[in-house]
């Protein structure tokens, strides 16, 4: 039996692939979502100072939505821990 086929018989490549894909999407996704939340919060402060209330409300909405995604990620993490 070659080394590759031996490894193939031991490692569940489907499971490994899912793990790598989920880890990449979750890892990059949560950082991106939190960055957007910070961007939204920073823009909200900036626009409010300049008196542009509509733009400020839009930025706040972006921040809240992005933060909700992050909170959902945390809740999902807790569920994984408990399951």
């Amino acid at each position: 039996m070659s080394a590759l086929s031996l490894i193939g018989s031991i490692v569940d490549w489907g499971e490994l692939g899912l793990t790598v894909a989920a880890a990449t999407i979750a890892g990059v996704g949560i950082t991106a979502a939190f960055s957007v939340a910070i961007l939204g919060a920073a823009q909200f402060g900036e626009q409010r100072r300049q008196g542009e209330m509509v733009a400020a409300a839009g930025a706040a909405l972006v921040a809240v939505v992005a933060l909700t995604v992050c909170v959902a990620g945390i809740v999902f993490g807790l569920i994984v821990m408990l399951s």
Partner: protein
Amino acid sequence: MDSSELILVIVVGTALAFDFTNGFHDTANVVATSISTRAMAPRIAVAFAAVLNFVGAFISLEVAATVASDVVDPEAITTTVIFAGLVGAICWNLITWYFGLPSSSSHALIGGVVGATFVAAGVDAIFGDGILGKVLIPALVAPTVAFIVGAIAIVICYRIVGRQRPGPVTNGFRGGQVVSGGLLALAHGTNDAQKTMGVIVLALIATDHLPASGFEVPFWVVASAATAIALGTYTGGWRIIRTMGTRIHKMDAAQGFSAQGAGAAVILASSHYGFPLSTTQVISGGVMGSGAGKRLSAVRWGVAGNIVVAWILTFPAAALIGAATYGVTRIFGTGALGPLVVTVAGLAILAVVVARRLRTGAPIPA
């Protein structure tokens, strides 16, 4: 107290000692980036991590009574084998802590048990495919995935917030680090305290204090494992914290969050899909990736290389120490005398080191 009860007491004490070293060895995984970016003061960070480690130990009680069972023949596992395996893991944890190198406590424990089993029952009791699937492949996957995720995450992060005023951005990422660090500490308490609970349960089953199936984990096992890992975490492995926090690269708050947030996501995603990865290797890989994503030359590759060497050596080194420990115990027969002699010798060495430090007025390092 008969011989088997004495061995049981020694194994439980050694398992809790391993749990303690596991705690202080892995404190860095949770707090190093937060301390480095000043998201939290050092003492508050370790206290926070210790409390969440303690709580995490109570969250889930899917105790792994199968510790190393896919790697060695379960029939070959005796209390003395477990003891020798624990000694191998403790020694390797202490050696890597001394050199400030983050390494996997799980791999050290599996290595120690494999080495002791090899001497106790021969090569037929070792499952090579289990070692490949449980240690070698995850050891390749964990840092590689975390490195790539950490690098992509920081590039995207800089693209999104790069043109904002640094003050609010830094404060935002520091806040995020507190949350992601808390999540990591909970996950660490849940996973790693269960390892110790599993070892103690295994010893209780081997000495007929628990049935082999349908048992409930005694409360004292859960409480003592939770306390040991929390105390270890609170002690803080400062040498490893320095390596992870500042020696690999000097990170800003965004990099700290990318490494830690991406790390937490990678660990939990891998647990969800049943392919658990080493917390230490994931966070170390994430820290390196968040540095390399900004600029390749930002990472001190010499330090990173030393860490990788420690990862490669973890399994064989712990196996060697576990094998030697088992060999020494057998000199004194199959009873409790061997483990007792090794324990007394270990405590004596520890007492001498502490006494010399106290005499010279040097601080006892953590």
